[in-house]
């Protein structure tokens, strides 16, 4: 029985004995409540912006069913944006490719209901596809973003997902003169801050840092959280540990925008051991709160983006940060070392369900497959031969797999075309992992 129920029942009991004063005296949801006006703001010395430490990532937006199809729940998005702004969130991050290309439009609709000066909007030049890499097509994409967002200037403009190779970077932004164009736009005031988002190889990052003297990056967006702080490279060889990225940016006094503070929910849906470790320290706070407090505890962090699908996500984040108590050095070490080490023991696939790999041309539900597999690992419910519970776990794994991913979209249908590989910001070797999962499932099917 939680406190609320307890009080309610007490209230009913009290009313019957006439002590009505107790009833309904306390109806708050939790002992920790978000207070308006306490959202920490971080100063961007480049533009003087005061940015809320919680940013709204417009990638994992709420959907609803309409005529059997998934469509955006604009009404709910509006409500969430309204509440976020009410509590001081002022940074909204989107991209032309997010959510099947619909994110900018719904963001624009939600934000245009507020005064332009009450929010900062960030979008990206997402010219991944070769047919959008010409100068004209890229510039068209940029102009289209303004149109979709219903704005005449963009506060934060990013070169989207730099890092797979310098060749890729040069092809997308240098050879076609797009970077020069964007710098000119910044001078013209239509772009207030110019930066890039980074996923990938260290040498590309170093190269980008070398360009800082000439380009002057107003901010950089990196993937940072307590697991990637020391382990990103270990999880996927191509990736760089967040502590290196942060330190390099900090050295150059470049404001840091954080993406994947929660690893697509993987730092809130943790295994039960980690869950109890965290709850033991802060029993009244959510698991996700640790991830946001971790990011916000670093002073160079301008904002940490959270892709909030439900109002409850927003509420929880607001409770975490309004007001905000930075983590102590001991707590930081606890997360970076003890908790991260514990998580590393579980061989989960580092998918954050960002959907960049989708749609797979062969119909696979890549993030869905990984989510089921990871869930079984995290729950310690991966069936292994010889386990006394093998039969039960096998059944749960196979039935659960069919429930979460339709048969024709499962890992066994991967043809290894590798189209997804170019898109995965986590640099997961998707086809290899698909085959591993398929082999595992095949063994389960063969051995009842």
């Amino acid at each position, binding site marked *: 029985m939680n406190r609320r129920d307890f009080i309610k029942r007490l209230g009913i009991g009290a009313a019957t004995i006439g002590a009505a004063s107790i009833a309904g005296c306390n109806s708050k949801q939790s002992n920790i409540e978000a207070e308006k006006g306490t959202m920490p703001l971080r100063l961007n010395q480049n533009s003087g912006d005061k940015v809320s430490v919680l940013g709204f990532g417009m990638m994992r937006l709420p959907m609803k069913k309409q005529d059997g199809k998934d469509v955006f729940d604009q009404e709910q998005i509006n409500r969430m944006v309204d509440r976020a702004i009410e509590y001081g969130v002022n940074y909204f991050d989107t991209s032309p490719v997010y959510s099947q*290309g619909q994110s900018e439009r719904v963001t624009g609709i939600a934000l245009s209901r507020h005064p332009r000066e009450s929010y900062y909007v960030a979008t990206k030049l997402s010219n991944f596809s070769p047919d*959008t890499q010409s100068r004209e097509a890229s510039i068209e994409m940029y102009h289209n973003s303004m149109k979709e967002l219903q704005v005449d200037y963009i506060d934060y403009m990013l070169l989207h997902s730099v890092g797979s190779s310098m060749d890729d970077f040069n092809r997308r932004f240098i050879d076609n003169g797009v970077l020069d164009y964007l710098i000119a736009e910044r001078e013209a005031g239509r772009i207030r801050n110019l930066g890039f988002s980074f996923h990938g190889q260290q040498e590309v990052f170093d190269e980008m840092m070398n360009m800082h003297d000439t380009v002057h990056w107003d901010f950089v967006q990196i993937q940072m959280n307590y697991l990637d702080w020391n382990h990103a490279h270990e999880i996927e060889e191509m990736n760089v540990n967040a502590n290196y990225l942060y330190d390099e940016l900090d050295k150059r006094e470049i404001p840091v925008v954080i993406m994947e503070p929660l690893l697509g929910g993987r730092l809130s849906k943790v295994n039960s051991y980690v869950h109890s470790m965290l709850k033991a320290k802060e029993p009244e706070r959510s698991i996700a709160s640790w991830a946001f407090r971790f990011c916000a505890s670093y002073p160079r962090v301008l904002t940490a983006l959270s892709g909030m699908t439900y109002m409850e996500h927003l509420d929880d984040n607001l409770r975490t940060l309004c007001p905000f108590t930075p983590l102590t050095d001991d707590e930081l070490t606890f997360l970076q070392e003890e908790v991260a080490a514990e998580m590393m023991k579980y061989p989960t696939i580092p998918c954050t369900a*960002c959907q960049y790999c989708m749609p797979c041309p*062969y119909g696979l539900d890549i993030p869905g497959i990984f989510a089921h597999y990871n869930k079984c690992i995290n729950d310690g419910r991966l069936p292994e031969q010889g386990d006394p519970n093998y039969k039960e776990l096998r059944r749960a794994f196979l039935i659960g797999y069919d429930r979460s991913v339709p048969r024709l*979209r499962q890992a066994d*249908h991967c043809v290894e*075309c590798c189209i997804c590989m170019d*898109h995965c910001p986590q640099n997961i070797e998707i086809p290899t992992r698909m085959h591993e999962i398929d082999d595992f499932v095949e063994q389960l099917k063969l051995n009842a």
Partner: protein
Amino acid sequence: MLRKIRISLAAVMLIGITWLFVDFTGLAHTWLGWMAKIQFLPAALALNLLVVVALLVITLVLGRAYCSIICPLGVMQDIFGWLGKRQKKNRYTYSPAKTWLRWGVLLVFVVLMLLGLGGIASIVAPYSAYGRIAQSLLQPLWEWGNNLCAFVAERADSYAFYSADVWVRSLPVLIIAVVSLVVLAILAWRGGRTYCNTICPVGTVLGLVSRFSLLKIHVDADKCNKCGLCARNCKASCIDFKNHKIDHSRCVDCMDCIDKCHKHALSYGVAVNRSSQSTRSSQSSQSTQNSQSSQSSPQQSRRDFLTTTALLGAVALESQAKKVDGGLAEIIDKKPYGRLTPIVPPGALSISNLHDRCTGCQLCVSECPNNVLRPSTDIMHLMQPESSFERGYCRPECTRCSEVCPAGAILPITREEKSSTQVGHAVWQKDNCIAVNTDDGCGLCARKCPAGAIEMIFTTIDGKSVIVPAVNEELCIGCGACEYYCPSRPVPAIHVEGHEVHKEV
């Protein structure tokens, strides 16, 4: 009392067999598989002499108790008859035996079987008719109910239920099942066991034996006041109360008349041969039996030459102007491949063996957990199972169809035997192959082949150097994994052609 025993046993059998047909988990078969195997016609076709002799002996002792207890179609008709009686009491009357019709139907039935048209003949076979009704009409209801449970279980985080695909295996069989059900329901509603005593070939054969059964219903003429209540409640219309005669070839031993008679004039016991009833030797019954089970020579059927579906070209994977994130690509349904030779499951030995023995009861179809088996629509093989791989393939660990077949059309086979039984072989056609027609590269058929019969090889096609699948027909067992997994839709680039006679690889 006798009636209650009959009803209880019949209820057990009907529920058991129905469960056997609606169950898709394989659980029912473990406990109740024998219920299908003691059915007369399948046992005769399987040359299961033990069962056939036992059933004949039972009939010789008890009369046609088989028709009232073991035969699911008979019991099903009793339910409709009971409903009919509720609508109008005492609705039956005595009618003389339609001997010419009974023997005529039996003769046609046997001739059709001998001509290799068992598929058509089995439309009137009782057990398989019930099987078709249960599989086509009841299994979907059962599965939908199950899927509802699975839906709830999923939300309750339980793995007690998993959802099953509900799909029409074959429209002709569905139509046959519906028509059989409607006709039988009307006949049973109006006249009780009309079908059993005029059309059913098993009824005719057993009727011949039951004439001479040890235990019979008989009328005590001294007690009878000729009220006719017995005759008006006789669903077999076989009590000639005016003459105190009962046609024991049609009596199904339902015992209803015993309970109905106020004068206790009817009883079930050892026959008293009061009038000079015919005492022909039972030779003729045996001869019928022999003709039933005799092996008909494999008739080379005219094959169904379906022209292969027009080639639709490689599935063009349209590139989008702007690559956006998320969403799921549409998956086009595969079409059943028009095969030159049908594929029959491992254990069937050959197309002709399956053809000769199968009664089209659909038990294997309802069991198949991989959605491979479905009834044939070819007139020569009507309602008999064949394999196709749009929804799954014949998985190596599964031998369920071979375990359930009561007619010996699919004989029991072990996993090991199955993995070395060649039921067909894969055929690759370059026109649709992703590996040839796109730059994506594909080797899914080779990767998924459980027999290791497909190898990806370098070759040159139309001046282009490509890596394509090469089928080793000697190793291929025809399981259909390649066809199922082939990403070319709706027409796969690799498909299985059946073999007339299965062999070991």
